[in-house]
């Protein structure tokens, strides 16, 4: 199925979890936060959260930033 990850259409299977994606991207170390369809998913639920068609996943982290 196709889902949107950070705005980019991506193929996943019905066995893919948020944790799978975070591990693939080397982001599972706690330095990122995940939002599935605009709801924050706590890290403890990453391994049990699967996807459905057209889900929107946002993965965010802190960057250098003053303003704007």
């Amino acid at each position, binding site marked *: 199925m196709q889902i949107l990850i950070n705005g980019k259409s991506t193929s996943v299977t019905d066995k893919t979890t948020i944790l799978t994606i975070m591990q693939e991207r080397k982001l599972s170390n706690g330095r990122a936060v995940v939002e599935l369809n605009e709801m924050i998913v706590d890290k403890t639920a990453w391994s049990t959260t699967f996807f459905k068609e057209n889900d929107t996943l946002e993965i965010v982290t802190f960057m250098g*930033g003053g303003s704007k």
Partner: protein
Amino acid sequence: MIQMMNDDKLIIGKKILKSRLLIGTGKFPNNKKMPAIIHAGDAAVVTVALRRANEHSQSENILDYIPDDVILMPNTSGARTADEAIRIAHLSKAMGCGDWIKIEVIADNRYLLPDNQETLKATQLLVKEGFTVLPYISPDLMTAKHLADAGAAAIMPLAAPIGSNRGLRTKELLKIIIDEIDLPIIVDAGIGKPSEAAECMELGAAAILTNTAVATANAPQQMAAAFSLAVKAGRIAFLAGMGRTSSIRASASSPLTGFLRKEAN
């Protein structure tokens, strides 16, 4: 003087700040120099922004370069509405780095001037949720009053447009807010050089936030040190109370030298 400085604590939310300088981490060429710059500026608070995690650049994280003894303050940069700022605040809190948030709502791309009304809306909600909220505003007294009523921890009015290094363009409006609002006033944005930071502090500002002036200096570490000294100097001058300003005629500060000539004193 040392005693004067020791007794002069800035408290925001529930925290005592170790200095009156806040540093933004944008525009620096790489993160590795951040610890030395933050240290040179003796910064009490460091701001960061929340962005999409890029697949290809996860080898380093800004958090690895922020010393443990500074307060981390995420901002809501990128938000154009109160709702977007609130969403960013929630995500930032979920990062697990505390509950401070600098509200920044900007829908104007030419001057990057903040939307005070949306900023107030976001502040009202986030304070109720328990955040320590520091709103960034165009210097408007009534907005500042409403923000104080809403429970903002400090107010951050701008000196000039973000990143402009144009200095204290809003001086008189800032002074009104400093005089009228019983909260720490942190002058943010536009301060281009240490002398302007000192001037803000002489006016009675509680602290200064700088980013571009340091990040775009030839030697950012030295510039951070210069800002630190300027903020301290300005603060001591404020506490000391300024000497009077006379009319253009001079006023001798030494005793009259009557012995040089046969004049009556």
